[in-house]
Every structure is written in structure tokens, then in C-alpha cells.
């Protein structure tokens, strides 16, 4: 094998991808149109794709290559963000677009696909490298993997073969295990790339840079200085036409089981010895395995499920979840979920991690607030209504994921004037302002990494299992709820009152993001 490419200059331009083909199953779906193909076009615009790169769309609908090119052109023009559309570049990109109609349940379709991949590979010099992307219903993952495996398309004898799947990785612990068995019958774990697009966000990656690139914070990053941590992922919108899907999923499965536990692991994991895929993922997995699993009798004290009811927001009436299209009027799905977690290790013992997520909340925001301990001895007090009140407030470090990505530190400062009254002030770092350049979309980062064979930002099977171990006991208890408990919060609010009570039991309150 020849050695490394001596012409690379990592200070100026990044590692190139080997020529390859991406096969997208579900090529007529929304994800392909809105995210995948625009992200790949953007990578071409950034000169990140190799010569000969090709995309093969697979779906049941009969389409010619040219029909597919026409549809993808419309999608790129509509959904390309912060980038111009370049006609000449598109013409070249489109020459690498192909389409193959086929049914995932039909073995013959995979034989045909295999022959097409051979022909395209020869024509475009891709050397047998193929990345399969399952942008399909989760129920199709196992049949698709089986179809690929039986047709010999998962074998890596001529080039690499990788498979990307989207969450959810199972509907519960049992189905996650069944999916794993089905996938591993045809693909090695190293060939599997489980996308959690939250991990592809620049600001989530920046958490690692912040923690492990700045030695002043790490000594404080433990139970001795941190009082508790709050992770909020709020959406102001409702289910927006995804009622049928969401009714089956719910907030706990849709957000906490994957995205937010991964974010929590990123905030709390130990530093790895090297910044390499297996080392970073080992640390993340170790942390997930350290989360305390609630016993059935502890679940209700430490978790809260909610569902929004109808309300008027700013003069506009919005429906409750049960009034949304394709949602049952007696649905018991959680549109809000909050949970208290503890990490059972020396660094984090007894530090509560409060996580909440919900739909139809007052605004769209995702952030992590690290609340430090109060001063050990109070110096600065004022007399209010005859009582002495401490005016120094605890420091809070907020890592903002979206929108307006950045980091803020709240600290106390003397209020100008006579006396010694302290007032909280905020020191802000704004990611967008400090780096005026465009940040890549999560799918650009993740697709590029998969083509490079870098799985650092992808979820591994042991991480999936560890997350389900944490979430499954909660789901079990929640499934026994009576249907008169919902709705329990008005659209446009920060969730049910019981969520506030959950924190109040430990003397804490939710901050307002």
C-alpha cells in the first residue's frame, strides 16, 4: 500500500475523501431532499468531494436518472442554506447522480443494484467504495441490511462498505437489541454509522474543545464546584404534520434517549487519551453506563411527562396535541419530558443533572447550564423586609447550542454607587460573531466523516444499549399512566407544574433560558 499523501497541507486544506458512491435508500423522502443532497452539493461546492464521486438514489417510484437529477436540482435550489447555486458546478455534480427503482423487500432489487454499482464504479473509478444510507422508515433497516448482505454488497473485498442509519435505533430496549442482531448478521460494527445529528453540530463539538482545550475550567468540572446541571431542548413549534410519527415516539424517546443523553455524556465524560474515534466513543459509552438507573418506585419522583393542551399564544389560538392532525384524541404520548439523572462516579457523585425537552414551549432553545456552588461564606448582604438577603448569586456557565450558539458566564459584580450590593452580569462569547465564517451544517460534517471512515461523532451499539437501559424503566412506569392526566401544560409555557416540583424537591428551580 502506498503511504500518506505528501501533498496534503492540513493547515490550509483538509483530508480528501477517496472516490466513492453513496447509495441513498428512500431517495424520494424529505430527508434526502431537504438535508442529504443539499449537504452533498455543498460539500462539492467546498471542493471536498473527490473526482468520480457518485450518488445512487433508490426508491420504489419509477424514475429515470434524468428525472432524479431534475428533482434533486429543485431540492438543492430550494433547501441550500447560506450558499449560492452554481450552474456549472451543478452540471458536473448531476453527472454523478443516478437512480435505481427497487423494493427493499425484494431480493432481486439488490442484485440489480449490485450490477449497477459495479457499472458506475468502473465508469467513475470509485474502486468499490460504497456508503449506504438508509433514509427510510426504521422498520426497513433490518430488511435493507439483509438485502444488502445477501446480495454480497456488504463485503469489503473490493473497497470499503459502510452503512448509515438514522435514529430511532429501536423503539425500546428489546427492539434495539433485535435491530442490533439483524444488522450484525450482515455488517461488522465498524461498518455501521448510527447518526445522531446533534453530535454533528459545531457547538456540541465545541463542548469538547471548551472542556479539554482550556485548562482553567477542567479543575472546576466536578462535584466539588458544580451544584447541578440543567439541559434544556425546547421547541416552540408543535408536531407540524408529523403527528402520526410523534404519537408513536414521544419526547423521551425522540429527544432524551438519544440526543440529550449524548449531550450529557459530552458534558460529563472523562478526557480521552487521544482524539480518535474509538477513544472518544469509549469515554462517552463509559459515562452513559455510569448513569443511575431508576428503580420502578423511584421513576415518578425523578421524571415528569407532559402533554400540551390548547392555548392562545400572543393572540393566536394553537391546538392541543390531541387536536393535532393524525393524533388520537385520547393520545397518551408525552410531548414534554423531564428527568433527573445522577452519574455514579467519583467526579459526579450526587450532582443532579436535570434534562427537559418539549414541544410548544415559549421559544426554541437548546442549552446546557452549569450551576456552580454558592459562596461558602456570605459577605454581601442587604436588608430586605427586615431580613438579610445574600446578594452574591452563584456562577452559571451556559453552553448555548441553538440558536445564537455561544458560551456565557454569569458572575456577580458590584452595583455602581454607594454600598456593597452585588448584581449578576453576563460575559458572553458568541460563536457566530467571533468566527464570521459559515459553520457547516450537521449533515455535511457527518456525511464527510462517514466517507472518511471517522466514526467519532456517530453512536456505537454499546452507547445505544446504555441509553436504553436508562430510559426503559421510565417508559415502563409511564406506560401505566391513566389517560386523565393529560394535557397537563398549556401550549406556550415551560411545561407542567410537576416539572418545577421535581427540582424543588432538591431545592432547585429551572432557569429561564
Amino acid at each position: 500500500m502506498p503511504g500518506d499523501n505528501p501533498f496534503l497541507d492540513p493547515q490550509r486544506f483538509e483530508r480528501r475523501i477517496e472516490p466513492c458512491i453513496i447509495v441513498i435508500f428512500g431517495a424520494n423522502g424529505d430527508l434526502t431532499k431537504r438535508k442529504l443532497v443539499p449537504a452533498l452539493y455543498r460539500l462539492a461546492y467546498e471542493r471536498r468531494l473527490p473526482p468520480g464521486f457518485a450518488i445512487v438514489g433508490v426508491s420504489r417510484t419509477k424514475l429515470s436518472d434524468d428525472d432524479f437529477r431534475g428533482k434533486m436540482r429543485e431540492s438543492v435550489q430550494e433547501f441550500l442554506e447560506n450558499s449560492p447555486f452554481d450552474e456549472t458546478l451543478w452540471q458536473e455534480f448531476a453527472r454523478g447522480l443516478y437512480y435505481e427503482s427497487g423494493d427493499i423487500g425484494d431480493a432481486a432489487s439488490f442484485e440489480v443494484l449490485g450490477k449497477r454499482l459495479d457499472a458506475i464504479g468502473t465508469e467513475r473509478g470509485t474502486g468499490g467504495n460504497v456508503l449506504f444510507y438508509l433514509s427510510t422508515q426504521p422498520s426497513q433497516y433490518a430488511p435493507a441490511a439483509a438485502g444488502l448482505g445477501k446480495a454480497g454488497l456488504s463485503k469489503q473485498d473490493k473497497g470499503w462498505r459502510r452503512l448509515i442509519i438514522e435514529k430511532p435505533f429501536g423503539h425500546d430496549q428489546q427492539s434495539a437489541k433485535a435491530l442490533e442482531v439483524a444488522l450484525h448478521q450482515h455488517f461488522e460494527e465498524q461498518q455501521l454509522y448510527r447518526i445522531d445529528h446533534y453530535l454533528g453540530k459545531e457547538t456540541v463539538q465545541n463542548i469538547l474543545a471548551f472542556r479539554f482545550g482550556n485548562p482553567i475550567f477542567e479543575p472546576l468540572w466536578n462535584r466539588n464546584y458544580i451544584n447541578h446541571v440543567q439541559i434544556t431542548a425546547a421547541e416552540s413549534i408543535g408536531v407540524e404534520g408529523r403527528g402520526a410519527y410523534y404519537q408513536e415516539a414521544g419526547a423521551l424517546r425522540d429527544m432524551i434517549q438519544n440526543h440529550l443523553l449524548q449531550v450529557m455524556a459530552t458534558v460529563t465524560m472523562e478526557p480521552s487519551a487521544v482524539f480518535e474515534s474509538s477513544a472518544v466513543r469509549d469515554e462517552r459509552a463509559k459515562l452513559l453506563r455510569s448513569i443511575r438507573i431508576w428503580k420502578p418506585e423511584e421513576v415518578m419522583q425523578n421524571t415528569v411527562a407532559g402533554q400540551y393542551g390548547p392555548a392562545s399564544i400572543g393572540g393566536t389560538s394553537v391546538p392541543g396535541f390531541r387536536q393535532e392532525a393524525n393524533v388520537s384524541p385520547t393520545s397518551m404520548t408525552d410531548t414534554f419530558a423531564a428527568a433527573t439523572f445522577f452519574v455514579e462516579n467519583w467526579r459526579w457523585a450526587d450532582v443532579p443533572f436535570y434534562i427537559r425537552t418539549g414541544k410548544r414551549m415559549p421559544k426554541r432553545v437548546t442549552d446546557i447550564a452549569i450551576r456552580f456552588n454558592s459562596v461558602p461564606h456570605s459577605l454581601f448582604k442587604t436588608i430586605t423586609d427586615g431580613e438579610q438577603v445574600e446578594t452574591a448569586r452563584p456562577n452559571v456557565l451556559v453552553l448555548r447550542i441553538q440558536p445564537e450558539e455561544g458560551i456565557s458566564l454569569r458572575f456577580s459584580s458590584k452595583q455602581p454607587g454607594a454600598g456593597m450590593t452585588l448584581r449578576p452580569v453576563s460575559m458572553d462569547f458568541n460563536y457566530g460573531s467571533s468566527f464570521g465564517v459559515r459553520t457547516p451544517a450537521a449533515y455535511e460534517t457527518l456525511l464527510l466523516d462517514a466517507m472518511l471512515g471517522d466514526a467519532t461523532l456517530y453512536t456505537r451499539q454499546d452507547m445505544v444499549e446504555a441509553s436504553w437501559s436508562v430510559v426503559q424503566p421510565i417508559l415502563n412506569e409511564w406506560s401505566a399512566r391513566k389517560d386523565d392526566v393529560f394535557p397537563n401544560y398549556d401550549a406556550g409555557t415551560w411545561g407542567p407544574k410537576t416539572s418545577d416540583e421535581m427540582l424543588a424537591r432538591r431545592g432547585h428551580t429551572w432557569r429561564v433560558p
Partner: protein
Amino acid sequence: MPTTAVHPEQILKELANLWVDLGKEDAAKSSNGVIRACSMTLLIATAGDEDAESASETAAELMRQHPGRAISLRFQPDVIDVLDSRVYARCWMPYGQHQQLCSEQIEISASMDRIPDVYSAVLGLSVPDLPVMLWVKTASLLFRREFDPLLRMARTVIIDSSQIAEPTVALQRVQELIASGWRMKDLNWARLTIWREAIAQVFEQDSWRELIPSIDEVTLSHRGSDIATDACYMASWLASRLPAAKVKFVNAADTLNEGLQAVAISAGVRQASVTATDPERLTVEIDGMYHQMLMPPRTDEALLHEELSILGKDCSFEQSLANALIYTQ
């Protein structure tokens, strides 16, 4: 006795007042306030009004990506005893944000005989604890002895060697400064990045990496009859990686843009080339297969952004510079 003077403390006070005014102005319009962003002090040295105006515009654009305190040093070679200053801020609303982002600019105009006074004033104006960069926009200043004290202000000096007519002179001066301990950056080297990236792409293929020891010829087509510094850099960079290759220069008949026009690499019957097929596009040909790469226009701002994004030593550049001189003859 000089009749004019600039006072760093006065300038800093004016800056402080400027920020207070900006805050009040913005508060009157919205409650969001302005953000002051600073990551460096950028000194920009120019001689002549034309360079000064374009450099000022470039600095303003650059501040979006590298916010900092820009100090424009506008030298006026043909006058004597002039020294004056003014301060202002450049603000913009980043896309999708609610707060204005502002960077401060100081402009000092001076005759060449007042350089020592400029130096002493600037010493008090650089932002503490942050790097000081010097962009010598008017390259001829680098060859004036009276300019030397200003070089001492910065660890990193940025020039554009394409402005210097004689490549030997340009490369020798850059080498001298590196030998004296400065970290040098040349915008003319940054112009080659996309070319180098395209060439690197050829060698991403295993079969081309296997050919490296047997590549016997590299041909560089360039504009004009003289071999410019960019062609020298490219020749040196390629030669250091292709031990058996003989580098040939040819004068391109039809040229689309400045500088380099094409690079052709051959190893027996195997051929690869990178060619400027229009002013904003490169075509990469590898064994008969074509691929296009966008080559957006490289403004000074884009080139400076690239150079300022590299922190620390740029080994590739320094290595290529070291042997570039042999190609000027």
C-alpha cells in the same frame, strides 16, 4: 521641532468614548446593545492614497472574520512633518443575530520622517495580551530602512510578493526576515492553495501515490515571459515531493487570469493536469477523467483570512520558500 503629534492616551480615550456613544446609539434603537469583539491588533502599512483606501476597505471586511483593533498607518512619502490620527468603529449586524458587532479602527497619517513617532505611538495602542500582525500592503515599504522600526512591533508580517517586480529580490527579502526571526506570510503563496489542493487530489488515488518515485516531469504554464514568485513557489513545493521530477516552465499563449495557468504531471503514459479553464474554475484531469473545482476570486480579504487562520509556523510555506530562489534564474 515637529508641529504635530499623536497621543496614544488621547486616542484610547477617544476609543472609549466611541464605545459609550455606540452603546447609547444602539440602546436608543433597540435594547440589545453592541458587542465589542477583539482577537488581535492588525497594523496596516500603506504608502499612497490608493493603497490606503483599498486597505481600509479590506480591513473592514476582514474584521467580520477576525475582529480586532485595526491601526492603519498611512505613510505619505512625498511630504514632511505630518502626523495625525482619527478613530472610528465599523459595525455590522451578523446574519440572523440581534446585536451589532463592532470593531475599532485607528488611522494614523504620517510623513516618512515621522516614523519614529508613529512607532512610539503605536506601542501604546496595541491591544494587550493579543497578537500583533503587520500587513505591509505597500510592499515597497519593506525596502525602506526607515520602516524597519515598525517591523519590530509585530511577530508576524504579511506581504504580497506579487507586488514586487523582481522575484529574486522579493524572495530574498522574505528569506532575510524569516532568518531574522519574523514569521512571514505571503499572500502570493495563499493564491496557490486551491491549485495545491487540486494537485493533492490527484495523489489521493493509491495508484498515483505509487507513481511518485517515477514521476519524471512536471510542466508549469504561466503568464508572461518572466517566472513570477508564485510559479517559483509551486515549482519548489512540487520538487520537494517528487524526487525524480524535472520541473519545466512554459509561457502560456492564451491566458485567462494572472499567474499560473496549468500544471501538468507525467509518469510515462500516465498523465494528470490541473488547468485554469476559466477565471473562476480549475479543471483536474486524471488519466483522462475530468473534474472541475471552483476557484472563487481571491480578494486580499480572502487571502488575509486564510493567512490569519494559520496560527504558528507554516512549515509548507517555509520549506517551499527555502528552495524557491533556484527557480528564479
